Structure formats: C-alpha cells, structure tokens
C-alpha cells in the first residue's frame, strides 16, 4: 500500500487496469457526471470546484473555479473548453500517463467542466508527438460516444457535449494557452496579447476555458467526494489536493509520484523516488519544470506547495522535479535548457527572440572555454531585460536557468572563464543555424 492514497493514479495502479470504458465504470467512473447532470446547476458545480481550492496543474496554478467564473454570464453564443495536453515543459511527463492509462478519467473531467461552463464543444489539444495518446483518446471518445456519454443528449439528458482530439505538431509554445488557441485555429502558435483573456475572447473569439489534463482529471473526484474532502488534502488553504510529480534525473527510481502537496522535496526525492542513483550527493534540483529556477540541497526541506516553492525563489510550475548529482556541470545544464528555450521561442517578442539567441551564443562560448568575465555581466543584464517585458511568460521562463545557476554556482562560470583565459581562446565561435 502506498504511503498516500492516490487519487488520479488510483485506477491505473490496480493490477491489469487497461483504462477501457467498462473498467473505468467498474471502478466508479462516470458517476460524478451522472450525479450532477441536470441535478446540480452549472453555477453550483463551479462553486464546488471553487470551494475545493483546486488550482491549475498546467504551470501557473490559477484557481480553476475562479477562472471558470470569468466567463460572461449572459453571453448567448458558443463557449469552448480546451484541454491543454501539450505537455512540453521539460521535466514533465504526467499528462502522458494520465491520458494513456486512464483516458476516461480525463473525459469525465471534461464533461464536468463543459457542463459547468456551458460548452457544447471541447477540444483536447495534445502535443503532436503523443501519437499513442491521441489514439487512446480517440478510442475512448468513440467508446463514450457509443455509450451515449459524449455527443448529443449525453446520458439521456438534453445536454450536448462533444469532445475532439486535436494534435499539435511540435511547438512548446503551444502549451501557452493563447498560443494553443491560435494553433487550434490553424495558425502559427504565437501567444496573444492579454487582455482580452480567453475567458471572454478565446477560441474563435468566443468565451473559452483552457485547463490542464491533470486539473480536469481531478474534477470527477472532487464532485464525487466533495469540496471539503479535496480541500482537506495537501497544504490547505492555498495548495489543496495531490499532485502528480514527475521526478527525473539522477534518482534511483525516476517516475510519476502522486502525493499530497506540502510534503518536502526531501521526502519526494529520497522516499518516493528512492534517493540518488549512486553514492554521489544531490547537487541541484529543478522543482517545477524547465521554467522554474534551480534550487540547491539547502532547499530540500521546502514544502511542495505553490507558496513555499515561490518563497524559496522558484516555482512549483508543472510539477517536473529534475534532480542533479554532484559532478553535474551547472553551466552546461543551464546551456542545455537555454538551447531548449532558444529552439522554442516563437519569435514574436524582440527581447525573447533576440535575447534567446544571444544568450545561447554567450553560454556556448563560455562552455566551449571562450568566455570572458564581462560575459557574466552581460548575461545577467540580458536576462533582466527579457524578463517581464514579453507577451507571454516564456520570457520569464527562459532566463531562470541562467539567472538561478549564476546565483548559486557563479564560481563554476568563473572557473570556466579562467580556464578559457588560461588557454587564451577568447574569440567568438559561430553558432550553427537553427533548424
């Protein structure tokens, strides 16, 4: 028996569970939607979710019920729900598991969300690489449609809720909610300027809610077991429920661990994930996906909830915890992430577009022993000039690996530069063109 009661992973942890409609129903699936459909008003469903304290699992941690509440009340035209299954934040691989192992849990969550916001159509925007996930979802939707759970007059009510799978095609930025909408509209995935927010001007300019897979998957449980139950889990009042943390890197047992929010990183890494993979000590970890600033062993006792991690100078983000052991080259690690951001910048904002290419080039020079001390000044400066000055949060994200490694491991940068000076290799090196 695991130490904590799993909620989202409960079904799939049952031996032999395949995620079929029959099995999902046998495990108590589609009870929540049956319970509310036509019996509880959409506003009351929203109220329950609001009361549960559920916050978005996609990265920003925005309270889900509050987000739903922003939709215009008296708007007559269509509204949409988009499930964000783009899962592209390096270090994150939980949505993939939730989709591939228990698709109906997500579908039921979507039905509940659609019912609450009055959407008759919804789309699952799934990253293009998840070919298997898309197939599994399509099959599940077909099963549900055949059973009368998706489509016209679901469960014999007069409510129509359709769900479609829409595959992305390789662009991290499409996880950003407005870029996702643009992409879903068949355009380049460039984030939109906000306001207006999707709640009023979303998909096709209609009121729209974008929610992460894990967020939605929580809904059946909240409606089955009540807001109070959910709010009692984790680190109330602000970080309620469990989260599926994705542990990667130099641990003994990397993988997805569903635990209540509020346990410490130490517990997650050393108990759940089996500790370090060798006798090398932990040197650094990223607490919430590539966009979250690096933390050090000093932070192992920080609690895994939104506020505590923010207080420690990072963020809980998407729940991707990447662990690095002693001996990992932190400049190299920062460069790896910087290369990711350079590759994925959509190119809309000048600071992000030009800054990411500039930062990558400086970082490569330093790693290739062609750096200068003045580069560190420039790096810091450029990072400050990008953060907070872009359309979307990508700008803030891309600078966090460099800023945080510079903060904690500046000496490693300096050592590399001294090595460069010793070798007298100071000259710029051409970068390869972006593919």
């Amino acid at each position, binding site marked *: 028996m695991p130490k904590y009661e799993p909620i989202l992973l409960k079904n799939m942890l049952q*031996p032999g569970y395949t995620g079929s409609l029959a099995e999902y129903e046998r495990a108590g699936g589609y009870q929540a939607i049956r319970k509310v459909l036509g019996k509880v008003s959409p506003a009351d469903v929203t109220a329950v979710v609001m009361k549960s304290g559920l916050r978005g699992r996609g990265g920003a941690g925005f309270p889900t019920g509050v987000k739903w509440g922003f939709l215009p009340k008296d708007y007559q035209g269509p509204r949409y729900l988009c499930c964000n299954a783009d899962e592209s934040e390096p270090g994150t691989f939980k949505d993939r598991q939730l989709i591939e192992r228990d698709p109906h849990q997500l579908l039921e969550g979507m039905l509940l969300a659609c019912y609450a916001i009055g959407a008759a159509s919804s789309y699952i925007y799934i990253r*293009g690489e998840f070919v298997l996930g898309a197939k599994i979802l399509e099959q599940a939707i077909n099963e549900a449609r055949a059973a009368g759970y998706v489509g016209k007059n679901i469960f014999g009510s007069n409510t129509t809720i359709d769900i479609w799978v*829409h595959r992305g095609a390789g662009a991290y930025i499409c996880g950003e909610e407005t870029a996702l909408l643009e992409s879903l509209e068949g355009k380049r995935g460039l984030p939109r300027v906000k306001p207006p927010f999707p709640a009023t001007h979303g998909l096709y300019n209609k009121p729209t809610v974008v929610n992460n897979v894990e967020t939605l998957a929580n809904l059946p449980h909240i409606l089955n077991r009540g807001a109070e139950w959910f709010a009692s889990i984790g680190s109330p009042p602000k970080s309620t429920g469990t989260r599926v943390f994705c542990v990667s890197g130099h641990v003994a047992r*990397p993988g*997805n661990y569903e635990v209540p929010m509020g346990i410490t990183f130490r517990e997650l890494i050393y108990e759940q994930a089996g500790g370090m993979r060798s006798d090398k000590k932990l040197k650094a970890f990223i607490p919430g996906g590539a966009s979250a600033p690096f933390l050090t062993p000093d932070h192992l006792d920080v609690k895994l909830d939104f506020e505590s991690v923010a207080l420690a100078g990072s963020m809980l983000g998407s729940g991707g915890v990447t662990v690095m052991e002693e001996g990992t080259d932190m400049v190299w690690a920062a460069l790896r992430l910087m290369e990711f951001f350079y590759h994925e910048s959509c190119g809309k904002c000048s600071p992000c577009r030009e800054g990411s290419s500039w930062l990558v080039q400086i970082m490569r020079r330093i790693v290739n022993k062609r750096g200068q001390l003045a580069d560190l000044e420039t790096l810091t400066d450029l990072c400050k000039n990008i953060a907070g000055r872009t359309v979307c949060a990508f700008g803030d994200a891309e600078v966090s690996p460099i800023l945080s490694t510079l903060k904690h491991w500046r000496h490693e940068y300096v050592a590399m530069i001294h090595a460069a000076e010793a070798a007298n290799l100071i000259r710029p090196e051409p970068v390869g063109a972006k*593919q």
Partner: protein
Amino acid sequence: MLKETHKAEIDDILSRYPVKRSALLPLLYLAQREQGYITEAAMQEIAGLLKLTPPQVYETATFYTMLNLKPVGKFHLQVCKSLMCALVGSDTVIGWISAKLGIKPGETTPDRLFTLSIVECLAACGTGPMMQVNDDYYERLTEEKLDRILADLRQTGTCSLKTGPFMWPEPAPAKPGA
C-alpha cells in the same frame, strides 16, 4: 489529390470545427502521412480546401517542427537531447546512432531508411534516454536495445521494444486469473 483519395476523412475532419482553418494541422498531417512529407502541391490543395492562400498554409506549416517540408528517411529517429535526457546519457545515444548508421544529426542514410534528428523534450524525462521513431517512443535506451531496434526496423519495419501505454514506475503485474 487528397480530395479524391481521402474524401471521407477530410469531411470528417472538417466536421469537427466551426471554422475551416482549424482543420489545417490535421490536413497537413494527412498530407504528410500520404507522402512522407508535405509537398507544395499538397499545401496548395489544402489552401483550396480551407479557403486560405498558399502562403497562409506555408507560414503555419513552417512553424511546427513535426511537419516536414522535405523528404525524410523511412524511419525518422528523433533523439531527445534536452537536459533531463542529457543527464542520463542522451548524448551517448546520439553518438551510438551516428556511429552505427554513419550519419550525423540532420542527415539521412544513403538507402533513405534512416534520418537522425536531435529534438527537444518529448515528455519522457523519467525514462530517458529516449527517442521517437516515427509514431513510436523507445525509452530507457541502452546500446543493446538500440541494436535490436535498428535491426528490427530494418527487417520488419517495427520493433516490439516500443513503449506505451506509458506508466512509470510500472504498476505491479496483474495477478494471473484475477
């Protein structure tokens, strides 16, 4: 022409969206599935189907890395090199593939069987090093596994080492008879 060969599928795709342009990515995928990459003629046809200009299709097609505007090998090996995979040895995997196939990243073998690409995070960070070959993921790669994958792909076009439905750590196996 896709319109003739895939009419039902195209109609089905179009029926999902209130605005035609939304069908753009699905149709580009369809074109890529048919020809291995997206040809100019396909973009033109899709533009016609969706009432877009060809440049509108083109700008979208070039934004996404999974859409190939040039032919790729029969098996497109895409190795993740983002930090999480790199921590557990993705660079080594790339080195192995390069050596075994005699191609550098971005290149295709002369028999047009394999193309090697280096890609960013594929959301399999806990099971790295990993690669995607066409539609399939191969995770926790080792040199032996890689040899078998390449050999199987050559011989049968697929390999049973592909992974998914994904779950990690793996659940306990089902009790026989339960």
